[in-house]
């Protein structure tokens, strides 16, 4: 049973430990540096970070979040860059954005707006 914390009326599972967080932090900072030299790869690097984060939190996530991670997020292209099939690439990332939005709306949409 994952450790839970309280957010207003919501309970939320702890899904990252310090090692995971440091790995992602290192990735983001070093990717920022590499993008100065290879900006065309920017979307791919961000999606790689998303894949890594998904891999870190999957085991401790709620069933609903795990479904998102193992569905729309897992299907995101790991290696492609928006070059050969830019429309297809865009459509796939848009699809993932919609799936994330659906998940967030279902999970948090019923919470009252903070004052």
């Amino acid at each position, binding site marked *: 049973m994952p450790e839970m914390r309280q957010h207003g009326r919501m309970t939320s599972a702890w899904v990252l430990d310090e090692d995971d967080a440091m790995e992602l932090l290192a990735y983001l900072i070093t990717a920022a540096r590499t993008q100065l030299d290879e900006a065309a790869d920017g979307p791919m690097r961000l999606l790689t970070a998303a894949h890594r984060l998904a891999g870190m939190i999957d085991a401790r996530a709620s069933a609903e979040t795990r479904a998102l991670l193992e569905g729309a997020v897992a299907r995101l292209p790991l290696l492609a860059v928006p070059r050969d099939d830019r429309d297809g*690439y865009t459509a796939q990332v848009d699809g993932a954005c919609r799936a994330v939005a659906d998940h967030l709306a279902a999970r948090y949409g019923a919470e009252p707006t903070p004052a």
Partner: protein
Amino acid sequence: MTAADASEAVLAAIRSRRVVRAMTSEPVERGALEAVLDAGRWAPTAGNRHLQRFVATDHRGLLRVLRMVSPGMIQRPTAAITICTDRAAAEDYGFPPEAPGLFVDVGTAAATLMLAAHAIGLGAGPVTSFSRAAVSTVLRLPDGWHPELIVCLGHPESTQPRPLAPRRAFTWRDLTMWAPSA
């Protein structure tokens, strides 16, 4: 083995080598790693100058940190060889730091290491997207050694990640122009 058999074996190895981006957790034996490194010294270098240096590791913790600072490292290698340019030695030869020849030699070294790995049943994949500053720190590189490319090594997974777009099958004719043109 006849000369013809040897030729065919070399060509078959060249044709069947692939960049490996998914590797198992099975360690690379030290002897296999040394065999790949030994092949590296046979890579052609401009003027036979050998200005590239190899930094090898099969240390699990070091590999984990190396991957953390290498956004292009999709795979989880169980060994890695970082190809560095000895910029101090290159300067002694009169090369400016960004001389193209230095990078060509990195390429020939990488190709040779990856082909050698393939020949002994290992998977290999090159990574150039990493923080030079961070990798220098992690590997404690000597002054003047500049990390240029990491060759990841490991045992290939049976399935590999696929890019979104299908691979284009080039023939040599697609990539070649005769001179003078017909």
